[in-house]
């Protein structure tokens, strides 16, 4: 019973303060963002050029960092201010996740599978990373990158389809794997060729063979440069080793 009373108390938001960032991160569709450190947001240097994207940046910063309450602003401006605060958060986010603090926070989210898993069967539920196709906002929504098949996927849920890709940026996955090379996957060579009554369709088989040939050439180039590619990070799963792994 007392729990119920407490809940009513927070609902009317009398003495309980909620941080703008926490509220923002709690909105459905915002699951891909990490929380940006206050110090990072307050450092003018990190915001260089962002006043070209949104107006009244100093006020927005105050709102995001809870220095001012949006309720203290004239009612007719609140909606725009809230909207612009969210845009600014996204734009800062794209820069923050390229810093070592931000990368570490995104690494935790990656480990938790917060960005979902690759839907490709042969990728065996490899965790995804968010990526933008453009660094300029308002071009395209966020996409997901699978490092195992090195391909792009649409987020599963429609609510992510409205999140701007620029809030994650084009460089994030590359930076992520340079920083955390230990999570670069071992790639799989598995492919699929459609079959009819047990027989592979000829034209699909032919294309598949040609693609395997292209992979073979890549493998030769890498080996020639002295790069180990069998069952190592950034290499391929070897046929024999794969069988051993399965038998374990």
């Amino acid at each position: 019973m007392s729990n119920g009373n407490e809940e009513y108390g927070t609902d009317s938001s009398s003495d309980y303060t909620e941080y703008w960032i926490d509220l923002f991160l709690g909105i459905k569709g915002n699951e891909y963002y990490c929380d940006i450190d206050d110090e990072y947001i307050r450092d003018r240097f990190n915001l260089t050029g962002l006043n070209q994207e949104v107006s009244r940046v100093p006020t927005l910063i105050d709102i995001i960092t809870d220095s001012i309450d949006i309720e203290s602003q004239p009612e007719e401006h609140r909606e725009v201010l809230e909207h612009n605060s969210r845009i600014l958060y996204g734009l800062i986010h794209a820069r923050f996740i390229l810093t070592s603090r931000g990368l570490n926070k995104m690494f935790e989210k990656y480990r938790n599978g917060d960005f979902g898993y690759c839907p490709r069967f042969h990728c065996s539920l490899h965790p995804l990373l968010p990526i933008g196709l453009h660094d300029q906002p308002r071009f395209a929504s966020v996409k997901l990158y699978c490092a195992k098949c090195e391909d792009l996927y649409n987020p599963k849920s429609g609510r992510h389809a409205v999140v701007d890709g620029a809030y994650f940026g084009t460089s994030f996955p590359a930076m992520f794997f340079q920083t955390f090379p230990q999570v670069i996957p071992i790639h799989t060579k598995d492919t699929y060729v459609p079959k009819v009554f047990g027989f592979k369709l000829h034209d699909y088989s032919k294309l598949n063979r040609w693609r395997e040939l292209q992979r073979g050439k890549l493998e030769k180039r890498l080996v020639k440069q002295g790069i180990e590619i069998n069952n190592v990070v950034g290499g391929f799963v070897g046929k024999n080793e794969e069988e051993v792994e399965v038998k374990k």
Partner: protein
Amino acid sequence: MSSDPEEDYVSWIQTFCESFGHDYFVPVSQDFIEDDFNLTGLSSQVPYYREALYTILDYEVETSEDQPNSVSGAVNSVATTTATTGAASTSATTANATSNGFNDNSRELPNKVLLARSAELLYGLIHSRYIISKPGLTAMATKFERNEFGSCPRYYCDGMHLIPVGATDIPGHETVRLYCPCCNDIYLPSSSRYLNIDGAFFGTTFPGLLVKMFPEIENQCRIRTQRFNSQDFGIKLFGFKINELSSSGPRMKWLRLYPSTEAEKEEYENCELGLPDEFEDLTGSESDMEVGEEEEEEEEEEEEGEDDDRTMASEN
């Protein structure tokens, strides 16, 4: 004849197709099921085959719960009530196992749970045959057109419609997957509701046959791959592509590649029957028998099968 139970009557097949997670299935026509030829070999794969078949066809089937000897009176009366309340049983012709030459004493009757499972298994196996017959293929093509199997999650496939596929034709091994004719790859269904649907109920042949019987599908894919040139894609750092020699450099471009230059097209033509000698080991030991070639295909499902066990809960 227009009594209420008649109008409320919902067939077993309709109920099955409308139940949760069964929306990839099409209703198999009565004619198809009643043609014995279509059921060849299924009786050995399905326990209580005859009872299961009668269930699918909406005949009343006796279960162990109906047997007075084996069940206590109180339980039995409950079982009988539930069995007869359904509108289906009132309208269906009585053709239970006893009236078809089975002796109650020599043969055990299935219980309701077993019977329900057998009926679903039998229906699934018939379904996998039906959808590669002309009427079944057409029914599935309509579902495909309406995007009822979902869209390819791959960004560059631009919402291409997916096609259900099984990794094997043997039931009880792998759950259903989805094939994209555009990227030629296999995906997991996006909703967990399909995670216990047996892939064998769709089978290995269906997508290949659908694509070949409806050339419009390959046409749509061609347009998509031309419009969306994914071949330039690769992760970049501040606009610069990652060098191939770096461990995070590109490794998978080959997977989505199409021959574009003249040299590549010639190389592609040379892949007609096999790979150049120096690359022969690439395809591994599996023999690539194709439609039109004569040798028997060797089993090459093993590798796929082993992989699947690690990632998906197999049907039980």
